[in-house]
């Protein structure tokens, strides 16, 4: 999937997607030097911002793990990253069928809470998965992505009766999703 590309989340067999997961995985960067074993810990955070008519109405992130309506759930904060074996260290699950009717867009973001840029992170990736069958819909490699501390990943938005996902991939800078609001608003 490339930047700006949109895919409909309608399945080929006519049924539409009911649940998607945004997964985030990374590995701390090893530091070269005398104390080679001492790796610097890197904390990346995944967030999902729920918009109604371009107004943010709810946010799911490490301080608010379940949206009030229960349709969007964060699996919990991971402060140090994983072992880089391809698994998600943080994930946000979205039950599209239960998203309140006034929410028309959900934007997924990634931030570096500890401030390292994506250049310093190893094996960092971010992906969207069809939760019902585990099929990967989109995948970004964040590592080596440039001197940025955040990225607006993708948005899912209502189109007709179903949902469509658009890859965004806009780099940004900020510690939490709040800092990204100015960057998010133009892509809505």
């Amino acid at each position, binding site marked *: 999937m490339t930047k700006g590309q949109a895919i409909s989340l309608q399945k080929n067999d006519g049924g539409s997607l*009911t649940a998607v997961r945004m997964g985030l995985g990374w590995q701390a960067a090893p530091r070269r030097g005398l104390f080679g074993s001492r790796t610097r810990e890197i904390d990346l955070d995944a967030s999902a911002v729920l918009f109604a008519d371009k107004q*943010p109405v*709810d946010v799911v992130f490490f301080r*608010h793990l379940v949206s009030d309506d229960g349709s969007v759930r964060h699996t919990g904060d*991971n402060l140090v990253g994983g072992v880089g074996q391809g698994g998600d260290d943080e994930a946000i699950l979205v039950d599209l069928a*239960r998203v*309140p009717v006034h929410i028309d867009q959900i934007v997924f973001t990634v931030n570096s809470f500890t401030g390292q840029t994506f250049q310093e992170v190893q094996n960092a990736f971010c992906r969207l998965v069809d939760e019902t069958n585990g099929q990967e819909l989109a995948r970004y490699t964040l590592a080596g992505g440039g001197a940025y501390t955040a990225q607006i990943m993708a948005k899912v938005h209502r189109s007709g009766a179903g949902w469509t996902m658009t890859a965004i991939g806009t780099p940004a800078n900020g510690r939490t999703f709040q800092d990204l609001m100015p960057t998010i608003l133009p892509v809505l």
Partner: protein
Amino acid sequence: MTAELVRGQNHPLSQARLEIRVSAGTPVVASATLGDENGKARSTEWVAHPGAPTLPGLEVSRQAAADHRLAVDLDAVPETVHRVSVLLALPTADGAGPARFGAVAAPFVAVTGLDGTEVATYTITGLDAESAVVALELYRRQGAWKVRAVGQGYAGGLAELLTDQGLPEAHHLAGHIDEAVARSLARSVPAPPQRTADGDRTRQAAGPHASPYGPQGTPAPGAAQPTVPQGLTPPDSPALTQPSAPSASGPIDYSHPGRRPAAPPPPVPTAPPAAPGQPTQPVAGDATGWSMDERLYNQIWGMFEDLARTTAAYRSAVDFADSRMEKELDQALSDPRHRIGGQGDAAREAAQAKHAHLVDQARAALDRDLAQLAAEADVVEPALPPAYARWDNPVWHGYRVPMEIPMAVRVGDLHLPESGLLRIPMLVRLPLERGLWIDSGRSELFDDSFADATGLGNLAMETAVALAARLLAIHPAGEFTVHIVDPAGSGAPALAPLVRTGVLAAPPAQGAAGVADVLGRLTERVDLVQMAVRGGAPDSLPPGFDTAQQLLIVNDFPHGFDDRAVNQLRYLADEGPAVGVHLMMVADREEASAYGPLLDPLWRSLLRLTPVPDDHLADPWVGHAWTYEPALVPPGSQVLQQVLTLVAAARTKYT
């Protein structure tokens, strides 16, 4: 554009109507004080707190919570007010939570517009021994309002903080606030058991079943300790949700890779795969757990959460539709082009049509979810064991004295205004962690049919008897003993089923002497068991000691109680539950008000139930006000009599 404030920094406010959002990792009390031109709060009426949550232009939450939204309308604040301080404090009443901010995550405060756009945010860092803190202040400067990040903490808690604000009655008010918080705590439904990380039941029904084992045969996080009762942990706390991915720092798995634990749980009933586009057919017991009892318990809590959340979705959509229509109508009115011709009317109609459309959609989504939950309730209710079943359930007619104590007991039903006929069983874990208080007092909510206080008192006693009978019936023979204190004998008609069938250890105690005798014996029992447990010698209790759980029903409190008896009662309420002595009070708080604040800790330690439907219970997720209905025996039914006769027969055989 959000300003991230540091301590002492200020920021202009362009809007008058604001929301102040607080996120703390732990439940905190949020209050606000008004200050005059010298920054002093002139009297206790200048403080908005959980006991008096509303002031002109200001509203705070009635309860302690990890997340708060304070509504502020600066235009509505009186002219004499020059400063609004937002305070956070750790609740002190229950003694269970952290006592200082140094032990919890740094609280985060955001000033936002009504649409949620953030104006300024502030993370209160650097707190240590403080238990109360002034988070922000909004203040007038040359006719305009500004916000300043304060972050001034007080180790002496709210009392010291309020003294510093110039309030002479600070200590009294701080105590009052603590009491109000504790009272709202007594109204909240205890938190449910931990949901597993993949606890979304709709997906679980459709996809492969989540077993309590992870992929490698290790117990999955969250499912590992299914029987540990949960305290009042806020559901949003990170501890409740576990990362689903395996992590390097996880516990080491010592179990044999090829060997399963001794008794694998019986297979979970499986929902047949649904046709595409159709919701799956609900199945009773379709939740995780080691036994059917536990699976039903988890399923009911899942239904409770689903109803809370789907209603929250509906309410937020309607709120959004309302605020959008209001904004569009304002725009239509203020646009001068619309003043002439039909354009204004057209714009108004368009806004109203948009509103109606969104509300209809929200209603449709709610109706869909309600229908699914109703279908689930239709299969779950008939499958419930006696402990969870309504009295009109046929399971009671085939009642047998059980061999095991169930996980929980149904104390009534819960519903919301939106939920129609759907009722969620309200289950409370056994053994009871808190005593119960069946409120025989009149509330403003009750209509005139209950103007007769004695009628309400009788109904309260009937509720108590139905609950006591249920507790007797769901415990194995001889493992549950009921004592009754009915000083004036006014509960005799309601108590008749218990007395006649002979399930009581002794007839209801009457008069002051009876009260003293029963309380004395139970107090001694608590002392003995506590001593034995603390001394590490639970085997050394005297021979013939009754090891059953004890329930004390007190009717007509405080009639027949002297100071000594009241103290004993408080002792039982505090120390009893841990050693198997439980309290059920049937009382009107007003009547006991002569004892003053002495009894406040007693009331707040009890779970309040009402004999008539009343919306006083809050759920642990979104905090809706749920209407509670007691579990009563249907009029004319003999089921209570039959069940109690069986219980009494089993008792005589056992002893």
